[in-house]
């Protein structure tokens, strides 16, 4: 969907992007990761021609972007930035309606679309009448995302969109956005310097350094085969643990009977009656949370419970500490 081919971009004598090539498939979520000044934002801005490459070409949907007038290209590409940039003199409704209006949609269709988008980003419909000044940071960025998605663009560019939000709001928006992206199938190029954010979003990770790609692949590849010392250093010593956050415990759930064979508890019925002192985790938890509960509870086994508190099964330390299927075999 997006092809970046041998693109170079310099500011003065400094090369921000250096002979970079990158293919992003239809419906893919690609995270550009790296320290400040690595060229990730520049790369993003080359796609919607907020910047023009010195050499090389950028294709969107198979079309060479340099042959299109910039404003027509940009109407097909959603764009979300950290500072959000809502128009302060326009209501939330009019902000979201920006691109549809530029495209000349009829009024009725715009009204329907705005209502649809507010629901999509999890805002009640009366927000349409609010003004940007009245919104909290999280609400404003939800509007920012809605505005970018307004004309249903096939491609969405996001430049640290959740960077200025408080940690709780940030994580909630990351998780919601990852789900939204899967549902809509929009092709997303997402820039961040936050490894945790990249992992929560999922998708392909591209680690950049000095305007070039240092490593590209699944998050697991970065742990198993880091391309360089820089990769390991950037991802940090806790990266392995961070990775576990990507896996739900339900994938590793074992029947409760296995517990008794370990001698941790005398019978299954005791566990169900709630007398057991094993740590308990929710069925929506991930492996990192499971490990955390085991550490806190001082046990190598945790019980997985549903919303009502009924025990669904158990998860062991060995199960929780393995990255993937191949890893599982290595562990045993």
């Amino acid at each position, binding site marked *: 969907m997006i092809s970046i081919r041998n693109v170079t971009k310099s500011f003065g004598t400094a090369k921000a992007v250096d002979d970079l090539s990158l293919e992003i498939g239809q419906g893919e979520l690609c995270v550009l990761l790296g320290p400040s000044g690595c060229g990730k934002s520049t790369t993003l801005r080359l796609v*919607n021609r*907020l910047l023009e490459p010195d050499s090389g070409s950028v294709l969107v949907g198979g079309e060479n972007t340099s042959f299109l007038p*910039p*404003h*027509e*290209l*940009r*109407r*097909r*590409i959603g*764009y979300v*930035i950290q*500072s*959000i*940039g*809502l*128009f*302060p*003199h326009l209501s939330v409704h009019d902000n979201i309606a*920006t*691109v549809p209006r*530029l495209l000349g949609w009829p009024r009725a269709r715009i009204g329907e679309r705005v209502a649809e988008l507010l629901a999509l980003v999890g805002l009640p419909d009366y927000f349409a009448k609010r*003004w940007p*000044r009245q919104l909290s940071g999280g609400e404003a960025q939800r509007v920012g995302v809605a*505005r970018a998605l307004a004309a249903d663009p096939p491609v969405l560019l996001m430049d640290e969109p959740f960077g200025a939000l408080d940690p709780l709001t940030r994580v909630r928006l990351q998780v919601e956005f990852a789900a939204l992206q899967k549902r809509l199938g929009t092709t997303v190029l997402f820039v961040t310097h936050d490894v945790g954010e990249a992992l929560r979003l999922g998708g392909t990770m591209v680690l950049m350094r000095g305007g070039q790609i240092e490593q590209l692949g699944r998050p697991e590849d970065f742990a198993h085969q880091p391309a360089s010392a820089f990769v390991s250093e950037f991802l940090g010593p806790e990266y392995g643990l961070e990775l576990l956050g990507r896996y739900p415990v339900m994938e590793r759930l074992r029947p409760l009977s296995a517990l008794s064979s370990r001698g941790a508890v005398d019978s299954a019925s005791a566990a169900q009656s709630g007398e057991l002192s094993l740590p308990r985790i929710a069925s929506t938890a991930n492996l990192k949370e499971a490990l955390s509960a085991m550490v806190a509870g001082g046990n190598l086994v945790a019980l997985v419970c549903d919303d009502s508190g009924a025990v669904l099964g158990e998860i062991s330390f060995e199960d929780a500490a393995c990255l993937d299927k191949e890893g599982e075999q290595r562990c045993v």
Partner: protein
Amino acid sequence: MKLSARWQLDPVLSTGVLLTILAVSAFPLLSLRPNRMLSGRAVYLAVEAPPWLLTMLAIAGAVLFLSRRRTGSAYFPAPVAVRPGHAQLIWQAGAGLLLLYGLFAVAGGLAAIQVAEGGRASLGSGFWLALPGIYVILHDAAGRLGRRRGFLVWLLAAAGLVLMLAGGGLSSLSVLIEFSNRRDSFIASLAEHLFLAGFSTLLAFVTGFVLALLARAGTWLERIIFAVMNTAQTIPTLSLLGLLILPLSLLAERYPALAAAGLRGIGPTPAIIALFLYALLPIAGNILAGLRSVDASVREAAAAMGMTATQIFLRVELPLALPLIVGGVRTALTQSIGNAILAGLIGGGGLGALIFLGLAQAAPDLVLLGALPVAALALAADRLLGLLARYLGRRTADSGVYQGAAIA
């Protein structure tokens, strides 16, 4: 002696009340003269007014003065807890309005009595000193009462005076006698004045817009344009008018076509040119500042949404700059209304002509007939455009001057 914050005397209010009391008790309210040229006899409120009125005024003044207030001024509001309550402010505004109406009514009434006995009654120094005192009382209350209630206070003040004028309650005052004698020339002067100030501001707005856009395009252009405009702004008004006489008359002499079009060393043309030059800096400066005040992220978002440069300018930059642009017009127009008085010196007409005629004839009523409307026009232009700027900025601006007080 240390006063607790709660019972501290309000410096603004007490100044206003003291000034008003001093003015009406120690200075003559009216000056009575057998005719326009001779100097007159002073009429003191304390001597002429009936005792019941004096008692009432004294009580109102004392109560106002003694109504000690908690601290915090309209411009630097103290935390909510120590600000005066609404009841206090409404009482203050009401008392201020009563004082205002009373001052005019008493002056008009006394004048009518004196005129009936023959002669002219003009307003005395006591009246002119009491006005700013009452203004301070009203301004303080209006500022603290918030935008809407504050506007209502001024509306009531203006409406009361207009009613008294229309009802003939003030028509014995010499200024109004002067007005009815010269009604036609007054209206013509007023129209000329409005034209001088309005047209020069309009010209400055059109030119200033172009200059601001040019200045925005390049830094060296900006430096040149603003250097020239700053210089024009620095030259004293009268000097500028004087400096324009010679080159303009030479031009008119050389090119009769220009002279036929109204270009001359004296008359309305040089006045309009001078006023135009003065208005240029505030207008162009504010347009530029307004356009620059637009957040870079907003401009980037607009471009990234697929707006063309023209669309960004018309749909985003201009609406966001509008409050500041109106602010520039406000400064320029208010200033032009005042400066247009000087057109009277070079045959450009306007209310200045009345003022200078009055000065030449040593007729203070004629001076007032010219000066009062100018002051009223300048105040009205300033208030109305200020309201417009605030209305336009209501979605985007952070809490304004009066908004803090509005919470109280």
